[in-house]
């Protein structure tokens, strides 16, 4: 309330007491003894502005591109109401598909792609807990081709994923190759596999036990009939760098990233849509539950890409639970399987040339850094799978199963007694035939399943994402014919088995 001060001073007689100064301009109004209101505003303007600035700064993220670990979803907006493609799952496969969709679309900003991830800290995601190897030593031509194309992508990663004003991407690739050992029992399979790999263009050498001993003197070649050694494009790299690179580039191309959990699909089925054939549905909305809240946001979409890794089967089960009236959905056999990784230090161990060695018994190890640390593990035998409820590490497994086998193969490891560190992660395990699943769901044609790679998803993610994007955009993929990887085979009787699963 601003009152014009008439004439200035001595107009009103002084009166003790109230100093609010809000009285009318009448005689006998006291002089103000409190601070006048107009100067109130200006004097407080400074502190008010600085408080406002602090409040605003508190809303901003702490550093460029980083997540606030305490409130990771604080700065991530809710998903939009309409989208063209919703990618469920923000692991390396999900972001790879999102990146390729935006790269291969015909018009800039022609498609709205939303990636929904429920855990932005990636505490249980297979991608970041992976050992990070890449190899072409598979027995299926599709796997070899996907891996070769991924290796070419990783080599030229800065041409694809570099964002201006950022430092060049370094995935810290170590080109040391994979070494598969085979006993007499598995020698024929190994040699057949090498033949297929060479036909596809992978550079693999076959070694006899004496050549193996000459090349790697620290190996005990007992019970080894033949070994296959990858010469180029094989090794290991840092999965986190790849995930971050995909994410950053995809977001720079306009992909929306949201935090939330997809709880259910709303679909057109024969029950609610006249003319719809029985047994088939078409997803119209995806319900995303926002973090720390019971609120659900329906996102209308044309295509859903189910790239939830180990939880793809569970996602489809729970999301379609409400549709089971006319549409009995067959269960997708993609489930989590827990795998451990142990790190140990061995001063006299194998040297700088150590490849990623996979023993005849299935135990594997590789070097980590140049300071004499190694990491390795083994897939548990059939029927003795650990409980997948948590990511606790079983150290007895190392002492009883892994260490004896590795110490037999590499005598230098006999002296090591304890493990420096260990962690556990999930394989997105395809219980049917342990190979990737890539293609539209037969009963929900606009749900594209991308998962089940059972331990080789990370290494095939750039190429698999590209194939998926081409199938979605163009209907066919010229580079790799992945017809055999379609989900339809999962309920058939002919598993597409891969011999070289680690």
């Amino acid at each position, binding site marked *: 309330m601003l009152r014009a001060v008439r004439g200035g001073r001595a107009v009103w007689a002084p009166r003790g007491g109230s100093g609010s100064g809000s009285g009318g301009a009448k005689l006998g109004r006291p002089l103000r003894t409190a601070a006048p209101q107009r100067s109130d505003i200006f004097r407080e303007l400074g502190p008010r502005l600085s408080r406002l600035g602090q409040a605003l700064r508190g809303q901003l993220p702490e*550093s460029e591109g*980083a*997540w*606030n*670990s305490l409130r990771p979803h604080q700065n991530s907006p809710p998903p939009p109401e309409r989208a063209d493609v919703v990618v469920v799952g923000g692991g390396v496969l999900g972001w790879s598909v999102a990146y390729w969709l935006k790269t291969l679309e015909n018009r800039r900003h022609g498609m709205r792609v939303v990636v929904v991830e429920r855990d932005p*800290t*990636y*505490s249980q995601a297979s991608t*970041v*807990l*992976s*050992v*990070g190897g890449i190899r072409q030593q598979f027995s299926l031509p599709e796997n070899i081709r996907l891996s070769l194309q991924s290796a070419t992508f990783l*080599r030229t990663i800065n041409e694809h994923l570099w964002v201006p004003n950022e430092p060049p991407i370094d995935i*810290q*690739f*170590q*080109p*040391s*190759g994979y070494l598969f050992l085979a006993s007499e029992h598995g020698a024929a399979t190994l040699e057949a596999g090498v033949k297929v790999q060479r036909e596809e263009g992978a550079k693999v050498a076959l070694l006899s036990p004496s050549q193996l001993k000459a*090349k790697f003197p620290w190996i005990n070649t007992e019970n080894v009939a033949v070994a296959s050694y990858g*010469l*180029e*494009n094989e*090794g290991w790299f840092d*999965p*986190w760098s790849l995930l971050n690179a995909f994410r950053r580039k995809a977001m720079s191309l306009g992909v929306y990233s949201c935090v939330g959990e997809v709880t259910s699909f709303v679909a057109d089925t024969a029950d609610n849509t006249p003319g719809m054939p029985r047994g088939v549905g078409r997803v119209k909305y995806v319900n995303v539950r926002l973090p720390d809240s019971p609120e659900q946001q329906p996102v209308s979409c044309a295509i859903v890409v189910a790239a939830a890794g180990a939880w793809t089967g569970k996602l489809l089960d729970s999301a379609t639970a409400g549709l089971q009236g006319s549409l009995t959905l067959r269960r997708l056999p993609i489930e989590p399987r827990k795998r451990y*990784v142990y*790190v140990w230090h061995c*001063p*006299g161990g194998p*040297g*700088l*040339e150590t490849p990623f060695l996979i023993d005849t018994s299935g135990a594997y190890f590789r070097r*980590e*850094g*140049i*300071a*004499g*640390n190694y*990491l390795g593990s083994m897939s548990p035998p059939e029927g003795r799978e650990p409980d997948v409820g948590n990511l606790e590490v079983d150290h007895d497994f190392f002492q009883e199963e892994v260490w004896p086998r590795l110490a037999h193969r590499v005598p230098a490891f006999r002296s090591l007694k304890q493990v*420096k*560190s*260990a*962690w556990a992660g999930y394989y997105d395990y395809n219980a049917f035939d342990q190979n990737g699943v890539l293609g539209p769901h037969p009963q929900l044609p606009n749900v594209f399943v991308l998962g089940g790679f059972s331990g080789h998803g990370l290494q095939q993610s750039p190429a698999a994402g590209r194939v998926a994007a081409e199938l979605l955009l163009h209907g066919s993929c010229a580079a790799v014919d992945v017809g055999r990887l379609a989900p339809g085979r999962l309920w058939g009787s002919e598993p597409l088995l891969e011999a070289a699963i680690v």
Partner: protein
Amino acid sequence: MAAALAIRGLRGGRIPPPPHPTGPLRGAASGALQRLGEWFYEVEVVLGWAERLRRRRLRRKNAFEGQQRWLCADSRGRWSPEVLQFHHVPVVAVDLSGSQLTYDGLDNFVLLTKLQHLDLSGCPHVDDWALGRLHVFGDSLQELSVARCPRVTERGLATLHQLPKLRCLDVGGLAVQSPGLLRILLEEMLPQCRVLGMEMEEGDPPEAPPELGQPPPLCDSAVIGGRVVPKWH
């Protein structure tokens, strides 16, 4: 001789003068020019230019087996006709220092099965992936230089064990974290090879290299409690 000329570029050192005549001014005339050069700045400069011209010609040559001299293209990229005489002679040494060679450019060289000397120093695009391709020279390569290649790291150097005949490896000027430890590991990996250029840092007092039982002096930050402690912020 070809070997000596090949090594010349390895440490960035001075070129030793060729022991046999290569230019028209050797002999009595060169002595006169040198004396003139002591008196006149202009002659000194001209002598320097002549030397640089000779060096540049040397730089661009490939040596063939049994051949004493380097052969190269002249400044306009044309080769002398005598190169055609060596059509069937295997190439023994290639000097690619400072060139723009990439991973794909090595396609042109993987067919040289008798290659003994390869100089890739100072190539800005040679990285760990390109070093992984050098295994094709495993039967013959004796000298290799990857000095001052900015993109080569210790990870690419681990692939060099595929070259068992290597006798001299120049890795000076590489950006690695712990050069002393890496040198020891390289010497263990290639026992018959002389490793040049990866000294301990200048500032360190001369001390015995750390034994492998003890943790290395420099912190290998990737290995605190295991490599992939999931890196969220």
